[in-house]
Each structure stands twice: as C-alpha cells, then as structure tokens.
C-alpha cells in the first residue's frame, strides 16, 4: 500500500455544522450514484424517456383522428397535458424498482451500516428521481411542441403548470419509496403497474368523466391525476372537458391539495418504514 489506511478519528464529525454539511454531501453522493447509472446505461435512459413519446405519437396519430374535442379544439393540444401528467405518474415505477432493488440486494443495509446521514438515502433518491422527471418532462414538452402543441397563457402560467406536474411527481415519489421499502421485491413492480395504470386511465386524460357510468365518472373526476391534468390544461390554455363537479370546478386547488395530502400521508409513512428496518 502506498499510503496509510484512513483512520476513523480523522473523519468522525465534530459538531452540528459538520453534520449538516455531511447530510447534504451524503445525499449528493446518492444522487450522483443515480446519475452515474444514466451514464452507464444510456440505452435504458433513452428508452425510459422515449416510451411516453411513443405513447404520444400513438394517441396523436393512431386514435387522434377519431376524437372529438369539446369546443372543437385541437386533439393534440388536448392530449399533451394528460400525457405530461401520465409521465409523472409512471415515474412511481422507477422509484419503486430502485428502492426495492436496493432493499433486496442488501445495498440499503450497507448504507445503514455506514456512518452517513440516514436521511441521505431517501433524500438522494428523491433528488435523482426528480432530476429524471425534469428530463422526462423536457423531452415530452419538446415532443409536444414538435407535433403542434402550444401554451397560450404566457410563460408564467406555463411554468406554473410545470410546477404542478413536478409537484404531483414529488408526491407520488413518496408512495414509490414507501412501497419499495414495504414490499422489498423488485419483481412486484408488476403489481405496482396494476395499481398505476388504472390511476392513469381512470381519469380525464383521454375521455370525459361525464361519458362514464356515474360512479366511475365520479372516481375519474376526483382522481388526483385528473386534478393535475385539468389544472394544467387551464394553465397552458389547452382545451379540456370542463365538468360540473366541485373537483372539476376547482381543478387548480385540487392539483395543489391532492399532492400535499399524499405527501402528508406518505412522507411520514416512508420515514417510519425506513426507521423500522432496524426493528
């Protein structure tokens, strides 16, 4: 060996500021790990980013011709906000698989046996997933612009819409973390898909809740995804369904309230689940 092994006393924390600095640095190391995954597996990254684009092309060109939009609007203008929100919802699968793989393989335990900040494992994970979602959303926006989608209410409203989409993703991320820690089996992502796809389709994304059977329409109108889709359609100035229910009338409020409610429930649940790994 060329140098002496590092000794524990040289690197042990010395006080509060040290701890905070290291909590941030630890979280960054975990985020950086995920970014390295992108660099190591560019094909997977590209496929992940292009899958929603394929969905857009499929709906816009395969089914789009047969769709009638309320008020005679452009179908692609109508479609894109729903596709943005769907992309955010499907991100839950990425989070789940990553968290659950680490827990099963013992990587989470290795992190827990290190003198790192315990918050960093989940904080780093959520930062990485949010970066991934920002990239995904950017690709989708570019795709939308390429097929003729536009925002009409100015850049401020458009940015607010992007904020609502990322807020939904951030809230769902904690459901992904919670399920990943609770289920600890990456193969169970199939089960998660079975939960997530109905959430995606049982909404106002493709069809008007008014045309669904009564109870199904009510579920679709109150779906958190529907709130974000309706609110972003308003903010982008794209055509939407409208609707008489309270949820449909107050879409922007619901698009804030739903993610916050999910966060209030699943953030503490995830933290508790993480702590319970030591029980």
């Amino acid at each position, binding site marked *: *060996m*060329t*140098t002496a*092994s*590092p*000794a*524990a006393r040289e*690197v*042990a*924390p010395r006080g509060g500021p040290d701890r905070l600095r*290291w909590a941030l*640095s*630890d979280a960054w*190391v975990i985020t*950086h*790990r995920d970014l*390295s*995954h992108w660099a*190591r*597996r560019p094909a997977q990254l590209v496929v992940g980013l292009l899958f929603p684009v394929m969905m857009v092309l499929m709906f816009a060109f395969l089914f789009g011709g047969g769709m009638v939009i309320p008020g005679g609007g452009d179908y692609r203008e109508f479609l894109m906000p729903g596709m943005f929100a769907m992309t955010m919802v499907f991100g839950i699968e990425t989070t789940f698989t990553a968290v659950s793989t680490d827990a099963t*393989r*013992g*990587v989470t*335990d*290795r*992190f*827990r*046996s*290190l*003198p*790192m900040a315990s918050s*960093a494992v989940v904080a780093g994970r959520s930062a990485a997933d949010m970066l991934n979602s920002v990239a995904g959303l950017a690709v989708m926006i570019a795709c939308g612009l390429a097929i003729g989608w536009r925002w009409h209410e100015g850049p401020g409203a458009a940015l607010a819409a992007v904020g609502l989409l990322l807020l939904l993703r951030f809230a769902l991320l904690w459901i992904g973390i919670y399920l990943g820690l609770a289920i600890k089996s990456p193969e169970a992502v199939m089960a998660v898909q079975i939960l997530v796809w109905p959430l995606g389709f049982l909404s106002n994304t493709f069809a008007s809740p008014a045309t669904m059977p009564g109870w199904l329409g009510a579920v679709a109108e109150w779906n958190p995804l529907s709130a974000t889709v309706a609110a972003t359609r308003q903010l982008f100035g794209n055509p939407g369904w409208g609707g008489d229910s309270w949820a449909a009338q107050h879409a922007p409020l619901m698009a804030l309230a739903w993610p916050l409610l999910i966060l209030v429930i699943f953030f503490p649940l995830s933290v508790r689940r993480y702590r319970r*790994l*030591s*029980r």
Partner: protein
Amino acid sequence: MPVDSTGHAIVAEGLRKRYGGTEALAGFDLAVPKGTVCGLLGPNGAGKTTAVRVLTTLLRPDAGRAEVAGFDVVRQAARARYHVGLVGQHAALDEVLSGRQNLVMFGRLYHLGLARARRRADELLERFGLADTGAKPVKQYSGGMRRRLDLAAGLILAPSVLFLDEPTTGLDPRGRNEVWEAVGSLVAAGTTVLLTTQYLEEADRLAAKICVVDSGRVIAEGTPGELKGAIGGDRVDVVLRAADEIPAAMAIIGRVTGGEPESDPDTRRVGAPVRERVAALTEVVRALDEAGIVAEDITLRRPSLDEVFLRLTGHRTDERAGERAAEEVAA
C-alpha cells in the same frame, strides 16, 4: 458481568430479539478479544445473522447490551459505525456501477474527500486483485470477485472490527479460496473478525475460537480442536455389500475405533467416530477383511454440521442446513 472493553473488541451480554412468536436471540453472550478471529457456527435460523445485525447497529435488540470497538451499539451507533466493517450474505454492491465507482461511493459516504476516496479505492482494488477489472460494471463480476469487492468495501476505513456474515455461501471452491486468502491477510494485519458460517471447515480454517450457536444463544465454545474433540473428530464410513452383515460390521467397527457405531440399513452404511485417522482406517479394513465382510466403499470424513449439532444439542439441525453441510464436506 461488567463489560470489559479493554481487552475485547466485541462484547455482547444477554441480547434478546423476538420476531413474532420466535425468539431469534435468546440471551446471546459473546466476548471476542481484540485482534482475534471468532467463528459463529450454526445452521440457518440459529440466530447468527440476527446477532451480526445487532452488533453492526442495523437492528435494535429488545434487551441486553453490546459494545463493538468500545462503543455501545444502540446509544453510540453513529460512532460505532466508523469502526465496523460489514460483509453480508449477499454482496451489497451497486450492480450497474463499476467496482471502482462502488468503492469511491462508499468511501465518500465514510466522509473521505473525493480525492482520498479515489486513492483508497485504487489501493483496495490493487490489494484484492481487482485492479484490472475495476472499471467493469459489477454485474459482469464472478461470484468470488463480487465477494472480494464486497470485502474491500467493508475495509475502506480500515475498521478495527470486521463482520463477515457467511462470506462464502454460494461460492464455488475457487471463489471460497479467494475469500479465505483475503480474510487471512486481514487477520494477519491485526483486525478483529467475527465470522458466521454453516461450514465447519470454514470456521476451522479461519477462526481461532468457535462459538456454536443454536436457538439464539451460544451453546458451546472453544478452539476448533477442542470442539472436534468434544464431538469425536473425524468419522469412518463403510458401505457394505450385504445389509445382513450390518450387525457383525457394527461390532467390529465399534471394537476397532472405540467409538459408538451407527448404521443405516437403507444405504448399508456403518459409521463411527475415529481418533487416529489413518490408523483407524487400516485397522477397520483389516478387521473386516479377517471377518470375511466385503466393503464396497470406505471413507474417512469430517463430521457434518448436523452431527456436531446432534452431539452438542441432542437435536438435529433442519434438513436443508444438514444437506448443505454434507455437500460442503463432499466438496
């Protein structure tokens, strides 16, 4: 009993941990002197892994206390973690990243700066014979390479106490040798090691002291020689041509070896513990030959873990652990 943290790297007193209806640890006591290797030997479900998880701060005990490197594993967990290295049953590595990236990442989480983490990663890759493959993703590594990388990750801060939880389970003989050599060189450098294993051979090869674990507590301890003496050491096994010669063969083998013979009519096998390995073998062959009893096969073998347990506890281990121990002896 007061905790003696001066001469011991690991001290556990009365550890208890209950999962639902089963008591994984039921008053687990252990004292491992600094700079020694202690082997925890026991079948699946004996509580070895639970003990390691408590001692490495991953699990809170329900009762009892433990100190590792002088730090209480519950109250001073964060400080203990700077002194403890853990190599678990599954190589806990990021499969996508390269071996080097893994080590750099863990080094940074030990709060070495980036430059030092990189330097340390290169040193460890060199030391574990992974310098050439350091840039490859871990998923292309063989089982033995993974385990060596895992070991390297456990050594980033040169821990004073290293925990190896079944470090060679699932490895082929070559991979097992690679890991054993790596552990041997660590021990020579003065690291205290606690090793769990289901393999008598492994405990024998690596550990100065063996603690036999059953039902959540240590039921016997001693040097490998002492334990083997206690359970009768090696065994001779004879497979007869005819099952009706079993009683005669048992009498002869019992007389020659001085041990208590056992038989299995289905396989026409008669076996007994022996003290002098080769002498016993030739004696048995000669005595059987004189009596006109034909043996199809005669083997000398180490007692399986199942037999160790049968003698120490009076009950058999679960079937699977016993089978695996038998495979191990065969390998």
